[in-house]
């Protein structure tokens, strides 16, 4: 890849700092670049048709101005930032944008895009059911088939079973490599810090899957060969919450006596914990995205159609995967972070904190407005929290 003046972590940082660099180049070479919001649009379908998936993020350092004409201030500032950047032409290298009904505001972003953003003329909004009911999975599969037809028209190519299968293999490989990347942080001290980790994850979401996989392998090899180890710190933290696409929060935390060793966020592990299962087809895509991805936007129960709810069993069924991560990565504290006005995560906070209490894991909840300035006030709280950890 032409931009890889450097390799591994240096390349990741370069792409993190200038996300459109590689895809602009690919576009000049005739590739179509399709942006997507959140982790629910199945990128496997893009790749299978030769389209380059490019995950759309906001910009914490760009004041929201243009979006004020189309969006009220009491909605997710991350999504407001995206529409703001869209109106300002920041995504003029995109040929299309795909969103999903992951939350109300996430869905409305695509709708606003259609009325207010001139770039990326191809748009599609995938309806995602709210539950993991069997009927909902089948309905979602139908939604994906509808999307498939639309995407085929756009790509002027048929999405065959073979192409889909090959693409799923490629993206499952990416999931596996990301899990390998996180393995490097199980050691104490972790071999890779959370800032570097986020730079890599943002970088691979800005590259075609095969190039992302190559970068991941380079990073893993590079980190394993490192001679210098970071200092041991008091706290090994997990970060939970919705999208956080900027290294600033991780820098802030890592400036205290703490390492962030794992996360449950939608730029971090959520898209990568589980592979798409065989047989590889549209149904397995639907199953993966609706059921296997663990995001609070989907309503889950301990048992389908249970006629008696047991609170602790309910918590276990919803958050048990977090317990496993806490154990595997030796976590001794959890920071729940959320962008303000995120309903799906906000309702989760007291119950998740209660669950963590049952595990004996201390936690704090911090809220921000998706600006670096708002993080400044958080540092004291993080420092105080870390102080309390054993």
């Amino acid at each position, binding site marked *: 890849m032409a931009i890889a003046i450097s390799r591994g972590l240096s390349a990741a940082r370069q792409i993190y700092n200038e996300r459109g660099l590689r895809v602009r180049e690919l576009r000049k070479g005739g590739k179509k670049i399709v942006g997507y919001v959140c982790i629910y649009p199945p990128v496997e379908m893009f790749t299978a048709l030769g389209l380059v998936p490019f995950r759309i993020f906001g910009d914490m350092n760009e004041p929201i101005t243009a979006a*004020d*004409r*189309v*969006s*009220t201030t*009491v*909605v*997710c500032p991350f999504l407001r930032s995206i529409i703001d950047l869209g109106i300002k032409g920041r995504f003029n290298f995109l040929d299309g944008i795909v969103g999903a009904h992951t*939350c*109300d*505001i996430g*869905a*409305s972003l*695509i*709708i*606003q895009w*259609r*009325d*207010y953003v001139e770039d990326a003329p191809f748009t*599609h*909004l995938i*309806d995602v*059911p*709210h*539950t993991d*009911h069997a*009927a*909902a999975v*089948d*309905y979602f599969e*139908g939604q994906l088939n*509808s999307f498939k037809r*639309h995407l085929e028209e756009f790509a002027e190519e048929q999405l065959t079973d073979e192409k889909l299968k090959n693409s799923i293999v490629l993206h499952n490989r990416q999931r596996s490599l990301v899990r390998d990347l996180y393995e490097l942080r199980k050691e104490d001290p972790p071999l890779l810090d959370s800032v570097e980790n986020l730079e890599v994850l943002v970088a691979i979401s800005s590259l075609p899957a095969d190039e992302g996989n190559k970068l991941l392998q380079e990073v893993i090899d590079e980190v394993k060969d490192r001679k210098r180890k970071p200092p041991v710190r008091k706290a090994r933290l997990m970060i939970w919450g919705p999208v956080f696409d900027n290294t600033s929060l991780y820098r802030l935390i890592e400036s205290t006596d703490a390492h962030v060793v794992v996360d449950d966020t939608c730029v971090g592990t959520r898209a990568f914990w589980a592979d798409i299962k065989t047989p590889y087809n549209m149904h397995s895509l639907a199953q993966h995205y609706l059921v296997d991805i663990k995001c*609070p*936007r989907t*309503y889950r*129960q301990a048992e389908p*159609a*249970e*006629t*008696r*709810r*047991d*609170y602790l069993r*309910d918590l276990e069924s919803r958050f048990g995967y977090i317990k496993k991560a806490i154990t595997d990565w030796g976590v001794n504290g959890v920071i729940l972070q*959320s962008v*303000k*006005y995120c*309903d*799906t995560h*906000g*309702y*989760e*906070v*007291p*119950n998740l*904190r*209660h669950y963590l209490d049952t595990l004996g894991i201390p936690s704090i*909840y911090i*809220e921000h407005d998706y600006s670096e300035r708002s993080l400044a006030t958080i540092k004291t709280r993080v420092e105080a929290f870390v102080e309390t950890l054993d």
Partner: protein
Amino acid sequence: MSEPSAAAKTAQKRAINRLKSMHQLRNLVAQDYLETLKASNEGKPTVWAMLNYWEGDLPLKAMGLNIVYPENYSTLLAASGVAEPFLDAADSDGFPTHMCGYGRSTIGYSYRMMKQLNGQIPPEAPLGGMARPTLLLGSGIICDARFKWFQALARYFDAPEWCLEMPMMGTAEGTEPDLEEYQVRFLVRELKDFIAFLEKLLKRKMDWAKLEELTDLAIQIHETVWQIGELRKAIPCPMHSIDFWSSMPPSLFLAGDMKLALKYYRDMLAEVKERVDNKIAGINYPEKYRIVFAELPPWHSLKFFDNLAERGWNFVYESYGYHAPRPPDLSKVTDPLEKIARLSRNFVFGIHPYAKAEGVANPIVETYLLIARGWKADGFFLHPLISCRAASAGLRAVQDQLQKRLDVPSLWVEGDIIDKRVFNPQETLARAEAFEQTMDHYKKVRKAKGLDW
């Protein structure tokens, strides 16, 4: 603001010309709360349900269950002036303060009931309170809060929960003609599973004859309420938004006895028709400005509308998500579940095929453009809520497109459905007076451009 004198209060009450038929509809809701309390005391199952556009209401009612709607009850808490301590209770239990006001007041109510009063109803609760639920019916319709806040209630209640599904429509993808049948099949399948769950929970079978009877009543209620809404296009508008909000629960939630509700809505239709025939307005002042309210009102400050009525502001339409659009023809549908699926789907999204001609992608915007034309709005009162994304997110675009496409200006007033601390009636009134000049100006602009109002 100093307290108005008794004479002034009387004068304020008279500013809006209330429909007589509204009162009996409003009373049906109170009966539901009382009957649910009675059922609970007798050990019968009771339900807390989210607004679900009849998808769940009809099966529940056919199973003979007593239902209350916490989001409706939250409006009562706000209107009774007792909401704030419940909001504070939710905050103290760790829920972020920017969450839905309905959700936070329900959570606070549940916290108080289960954590402070050992399962007893808070004595300060109006209308006797909401009985402790034995079933929670969440819903994915319209907003994320509707399923997340009930899920969060597991913290207080061991009641099982079902979450209803509804496809997202109104978008370009959701209105493709071939998708309708596919969506209906999904809803029918969901309804079958929901009924199987109810039968398992209650250990009795669905009364299918009752379900059909209630569904037919719902269709007639739908038809009647839609006709009332259409009559409000008349000049002057015969029914003020306050009367719509007061009378909507028996159509929106199917509250109360449905046979009575149908009779009362027919009474209302007759009263509204009589007003149209005699050019009687919904306010007792000359109708000077025809206003559309978007989206949810400040339930704690409804008297504020009297002040505007005195200035000739007649609120001719409101809260489009609460209005049943034109009813579908279901005469050839024999499967009761398919009938419910189509009816419910139409309630939520039936307006959009008509609104598509407005030429914007945003379903909220296109609907309000359609309403502005149909009800000949001079201005919009836009009320973004600090605690509600669904009712607020699209309002800036509504404001922008109304101005751009129809030269209809908007008054932008921030507030909340429950928390009266964030609404300033004095300041709003001052701004409303200034806004009249803007409406006067754009009335001339529209005329000059050949628009007919």
